[in-house]
């Protein structure tokens, strides 16, 4: 995935697109596979999910379409809003922390320092390791039977590993946030670093010569340049976090759960009537994600408009 790198001159200046005319059928063939996958698999699943959330699940003996009762029951109860709050809390905090760390890391990486070549490789490691491994690491390191608590007990800081402050299985969710930050920091760093590399250091240097301080350089020169990278990378991370199931399921504090876990519990219930309720939960996650996406992109567009770039 290439995130908002600046055109580098030779590669995509747009001249090739306009210069050589392609037959229409070739365009159709090229677009076909992706359209098919998106339209059938994604679009079809979306339609089916919406239909089920409105009471269309005859294979479980439910057919009251269109029935907004499942949404009414869901949104009318306090459980949903608690779950939504928790879901957004994990998503916002982990994305914000990861962004902060990524900004520091990316700006450090463009400068030269001893061991930079090695570091540039090492920071990307979590990108290649699956989330589930990260979750397992959190259990091994941060659990009350884990390495940190045992080490503390061995060193005599606490008398029993159980006395170690609980990091996992609480609603503060330090374990969940740690896993997301661990995995997403290199991802956001990669996006920002690519933009910084493409831009070079000249503008910052020019600003410094003209007397700008570091704060001014960052907010006036660097930040506007890397903004597209920040926006797309944080959006991807945030929407993943609020839709992800494993980390809050394994590391979360139990009831009240996040929305994806809540949906899973509905699907897993002996009561088949809750299938539609579960689907309404899933569709609600989609609606929430859609609203946030819209607001975020609108805010970003306004930012760019104020700067006169759009």
């Amino acid at each position, binding site marked *: 995935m290439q995130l908002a790198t600046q055109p580098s001159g030779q590669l995509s200046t747009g001249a090739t697109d306009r210069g050589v005319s392609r037959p229409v059928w070739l365009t159709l063939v090229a677009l076909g596979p992706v359209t098919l996958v998106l339209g059938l698999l994604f679009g079809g699943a979306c339609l089916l999910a919406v239909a089920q959330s409105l009471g269309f699940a005859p294979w479980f003996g439910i057919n009251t379409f269109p029935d907004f009762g499942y949404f009414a029951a869901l949104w009318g109860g306090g459980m949903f809003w608690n779950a939504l709050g928790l879901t957004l809390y994990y998503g916002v905090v982990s994305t914000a922390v990861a962004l902060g760390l990524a900004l520091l890391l990316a700006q450090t990486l463009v400068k030269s320092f001893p061991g930079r070549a090695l570091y540039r490789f090492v920071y990307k490691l979590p990108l290649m390791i699956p989330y589930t491994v990260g979750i397992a690491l959190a259990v091994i390191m941060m*659990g*009350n*039977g884990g390495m940190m608590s045992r080490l503390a007990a061995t060193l005599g800081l606490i008398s029993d*590993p159980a006395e170690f402050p609980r990091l996992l299985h609480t*609603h503060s969710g330090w374990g969940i946030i740690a896993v997301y930050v661990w995995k997403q920091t290199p991802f956001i760093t990669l996006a920002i670093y690519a933009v910084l590399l493409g831009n070079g250091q000249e503008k910052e240097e020019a600003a410094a010569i003209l007397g700008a301080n570091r704060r001014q350089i960052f907010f006036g020169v660097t930040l506007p340049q890397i903004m597209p990278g920040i926006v797309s990378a944080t959006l991807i991370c945030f929407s993943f976090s609020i839709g992800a199931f494993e980390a809050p399921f394994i590391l979360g504090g*139990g*009831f009240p759960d996040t929305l994806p876990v809540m949906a899973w519990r509905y699907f897993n219930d002996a009561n088949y009537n809750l299938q539609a309720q579960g689907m309404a939960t899933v569709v609600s996650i989609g609606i929430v994600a859609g609203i946030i996406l819209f607001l975020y992109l609108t805010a970003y567009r306004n930012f760019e408009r104020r700067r006169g770039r759009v």
Partner: protein
Amino acid sequence: MSSRIKYLTAAAALAVTTSSFAGEGAATFQADFLAGKLSWQNVVQEAQKEGAVQFYYWGGSDELNVWIDSVAVPALAELGVKLVPNRITGTKDAVDLVLAEAASGRGIGEGSVDAIWLNGENFYTLSRQTMLFGSFAQVLPNADNFEWDPADQRSQLNFRDFGVETGSQEIPWSGEQYVCAVNRALVSTDETLKTFDDLKAYLEANPGKFTYVKPPNYVGNTFVQEVVYSFNPDGTGSAPFQKSLEDLGVDELARLAAPGFEYLRSIEPQLLGAASGNVRYPEDAAASRGLFANGETHIHCEFGLFAVATNRANGSYPETAEEVVFPAGNMIKNKNYLAIVANAPNPAAALVFANYMASVDAQASKLEVIGYPAGIDPWKLSATDAQRLVEAAPPHFGVTQDELDANIAPDTNASLVDVIEATWLEFIERKATKPLAEIMASAAADLAR
């Protein structure tokens, strides 16, 4: 029927394509077999023609998976049938698949699931939806290994699954008992638990050192059921919970279960994590085992007559774990079964598979290698075969087989289990303030819809 056609198109997205000619032969076979027109020889021949059997089972145990691959698969290959293990994370997944396929119009012989390892609610769901192949368990050659005399009380486990009549639509595969283990390095013999009051006393002295698996996981449900039996205000233990919800009535269920639920509420402040404000109910037996192995909890309960032996050996229990007879007289024992699905694509092969699983060879090997107790009834076997089972059995630690046998109780009727688990979620997890009878009534009404 026309509305059925409409959702077929939608559900087709869920389904994978299948051969359409499979149906006819399978339908004839099913009718002939159930009418008793086929000899076992015919069945075996048909099975070899079908070639494979799709077996769906919970794949969360390495020991079981290895046993299936290294013992069951070769044994069935010798009979000319390829056993295809489909490992799933929860048995309900297979049930959902069967229901979805049936709803998408896949009739006899056109499904993708042949046999499922299940019991309780999952059997109840399939039987309510009439998605079972039919009454086969008593006509297999190895049916002789089971007690089918209704006059013998011990035959009940072959006839009833969580209180629901099996109608021989499933054959017992294993018999399990809910056993609690204590870590002897932490719990002295003086502190050995016998009753739930002992547990409460232990927790008051050692707060946070116990928790149970979260319902609706069946391991959690069973703990709740044992509590409910033990606090039955009439002192009749498990007896009234054998009736179906219809026969017992919601109000009566609420009256009988109320003291148990009050007990569960009363121990909550002493469970794991309660001190820091977040009671931790592990999601499944494996998570609870992890807490026990780490010394975070001192007591751990799950299904497994030989779980202590197996899990001490594989390191998922502490080496100092021992069994306890707890709760005395109310240790739930049930059987689990192999069922054949109504639209099984390979019904004959499924029958051959079920028959193999009911053999003394398979049962003794399963007991020895993975410590799953025999589903066949030893008193129906020859002396030599019965002795094989005795010799194959893993050891017990701290208790004897006779003590464990003397304290059993039957499982709860499946129609009540659903209500009890929904009540737990509402009363314990969501801390509802409504009276228990009201919670149970609305749970029962929801389930009946």
